[in-house]
């Protein structure tokens, strides 16, 4: 599939230099590489600069509420598991207001792929503290420096039992595309945290460039839980790559299929009941 197949008529409204451009490129690249036709992809997003993602790429999309793209994505996937369902949203959206949905989607191992454009700030609302903002960071809501410790979403998710946790950088779209491809191929829930700097309110490009390294270059074993945790907790340097991966656990949708039977997906079976079944159901109580 060519990247052109995903070309939208809408120019992203992101600030020039915004990290999210790199993520857009990487997602297109990944979908093309995996040969997934645009009409079989649904991208669910929340509200934020990053959440404007659907519409900038020609696939199906649901640009919903702040913090709620994950349950929307699960509903889509449950109803029609033939679709590739991505979530693209910001750190505020996914690690703040919507983090509980991620925690529970991860533990259910719902087969959706969550790409978080983590800029450590609320971009669209003009630069307030986000859950990943740092101690002492000066923002519009922390004019004398933040007194709130940041969340470590990767460590929390790994602890929670997520089966695929990775981190990329928008400045490295090829590497990011590889991570997204692996996420899509993964059996179940995947989080790809992407350092995607906000050039307007909190530019961390230089810092990321200085501190980053690739886990795969250091012989990291992503099936090793404790190695993954160690990488997630690393503070001096910034590891990129697949932190953790567990392909042994069936996804929720695999288990669902076993329960209701293949092909009986909710989107395919909008059919009336016959009188016999109706009578049976009615007379259960009698």
């Amino acid at each position, binding site marked *: 599939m060519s990247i052109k197949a995903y070309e939208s008529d809408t120019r992203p409204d992101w600030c020039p230099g915004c990290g999210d451009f790199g993520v857009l490129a990487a997602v297109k690249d990944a979908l093309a590489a995996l040969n997934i036709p645009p009409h079989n992809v649904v991208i669910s997003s929340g509200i934020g600069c990053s959440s404007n993602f659907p519409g900038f790429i020609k696939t*199906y999309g649901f640009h919903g509420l702040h913090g709620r793209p994950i349950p*929307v994505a699960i509903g889509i*996937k449950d109803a029609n598991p033939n679709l590739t369902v991505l979530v693209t949203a910001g750190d505020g959206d996914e690690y703040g207001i919507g983090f509980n*949905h991620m925690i*529970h989607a991860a533990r259910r191992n719902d087969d959706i792929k969550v790409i978080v454009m983590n800029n450590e700030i609320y971009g669209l609302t003009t630069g307030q503290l986000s859950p990943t903002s740092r101690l002492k960071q000066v923002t519009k809501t922390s004019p004398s420096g933040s007194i709130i410790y940041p969340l470590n979403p990767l460590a929390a998710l790994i602890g929670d039992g997520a089966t695929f946790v990775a981190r990329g950088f928008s400045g490295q779209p090829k590497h990011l595309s590889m991570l997204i491809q692996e996420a899509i191929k993964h059996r179940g829930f995947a989080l790809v945290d992407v350092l995607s700097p906000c050039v307007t309110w909190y530019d961390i490009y230089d810092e990321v460039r200085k501190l980053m390294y690739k886990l795969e270059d250091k012989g990291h074993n992503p099936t090793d839980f404790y190695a993954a945790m160690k990488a997630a907790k690393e503070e001096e340097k910034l590891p990129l790559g697949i932190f953790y991966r567990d392909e042994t656990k069936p996804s929720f949708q695999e288990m669902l299929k076993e329960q209701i039977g293949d092909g009986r997906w909710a989107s395919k079976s909008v059919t009336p009941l016959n009188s016999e079944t109706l009578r049976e159901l*009615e007379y259960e109580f009698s």
Partner: protein
Amino acid sequence: MQEVKDITIRLGAAAGDGIQSAGEILAKLLSRSGTYISTFNGNQSAIRGGHVWFHVHAGTHPVYSMGYGVDYLLPFTQLAYDEHYSLVNKGGIIIYDPSAVTARDLGADISQIKSPFLATALKYDKYPIMKNTVAVAEVAALIGLGFDVVEETITSQFAKKPEIAKKNVEAAKEGYGFGVQAGVRKALKYSDKRLPFLHANYTFSIGAVAAGCRFYAAYPMSPASPIVHWMTAHAKKLGITVFLGEDEISVINATIGAAHAGARAMCATSGGGFALMQEAVGEAAMTETPVVVVNVMRTGPSTGLPTKTSQGDLNMMLGISQDDFPRAIFAPRNAPDAYDIAVRSFDIAERYQMPVMVLLDFQIADGGYMTIDHDFEPVDINRGKLLNSDGTDKELHNGTWFRRYQLTPDNISPRPLPGTPNMMYVAKTDEHDEWGHDLSDVLAGLKESVLMREKMQEKRMKKMEQLKAEMKAPELVGQTRADLTIVSWGSSANPVREAMEVMNSSGLKINALEFSDIYPLNTQAIVPLLKSAERLMIVEANYTSQFGGLLRKEIGIDIKDALLKYNGEPIYPVEVERMVRNIMVKEVESHVH
């Protein structure tokens, strides 16, 4: 023996004593004997202890509500005796075990029969639970049922545990004997017709699945939980996907996601959970995603009385979420009604591409069974402007996007499903143009965008005008011309109906307007009905007369005489009657002076 047209039976005990299943056995006995029933479950938000009761109203004709007073009272505890004896009708009977209950002197009008429930039960088991069986069997005898139906019902009840079934049948035999000894009192005319009985949570569930719903999402909340129990119990057989969310927000968003992907999707909760869902109801309206959301009301505000009944959430449904958007609201009156409304809800949601809200309440949903006297019919499914194949219509494509929010004469746009080639679109909660481009963004405030926003808001809101015309007028029950017309909505229709029948048979001329299609109101059909009424009264279970307020606002009619009950208990027919007689007397008085 006195053959009557209806009887009422009430059991009372502590939570965990099995009173609910005893009540259900009683309901089954009667249903398997060709009578119509309506039950009520007076339970508490505690798992054990306290005081709970179960009420059965049975009749040879359809019964809708609690009936009048109590004909047979079975108090298993002193508290149950003390709480309920005063409701016993003249000619009524209290059957009690003196080892648990000390009776009062209630005069000659009420018989009090002593029966050794506990001692009898303990003969067959080391646990006292079978005292319920003994008591129920005794009542069965007192109301003139044969032992065969008792035996059959108990045997089927414990079909999986024949040992226990056998013990229960034996205990029942003794209890039945006590009843025979005392002699049959008030009895109905029985037959071998077997009528099913369900509550509105179940009939709504069956209606939903009948109409093609195979996606259900829930987070447990009383009194809506029976829906998720029903759905999960039938998931395998009927192929229902059940999403058990971490909260109500995920529940409704998953419902919206499933609907977006093409499922007929629904979720249910009670008021507090619904409060959390509101933002997403606006999302459904804005993205024009068809979902059905059920709110099974309980007594509030806030946590309130989780196991008690109320009709207090109408204002919430009318005011859901920010700014104006289209929605439909229904309030089935009872279990049979709920099936039909479930079916209509899914069609309306898809045909109008908007959220449909349904108000049930404890009284008719979790709290009370009612006989269904007809077989549910298979239904036709109308999915409106849903497109199933990929479009080739040029007008609907701009090369990239499908014209999902096309402005059309009927204000409803074509809707493709994800997965269909060449029909891509993005559903938007931001204001958008016909192609789903944001108007909030770099286009916001530009003249053309302002105009387009106007059109989009009009498109959405004008769906309401069309819908209005197909919303049903209230059902007029009783004679066409009456001295008093009682307005009710949803569950309050039931006690009104029962009271009306009794009052009319005593010579009054009363009829009733029962609303189940709540919003938008079909003004054109309603105004003549209300305006032509001689005099109006309204009955609802909330403090401020919320439905009365809606009528004032939408129709300009102010119904001053209102029976408003807000203590959590069901509305009794006798309360309706009392209020009516009160009004009528005043009427007469004012005519005299």
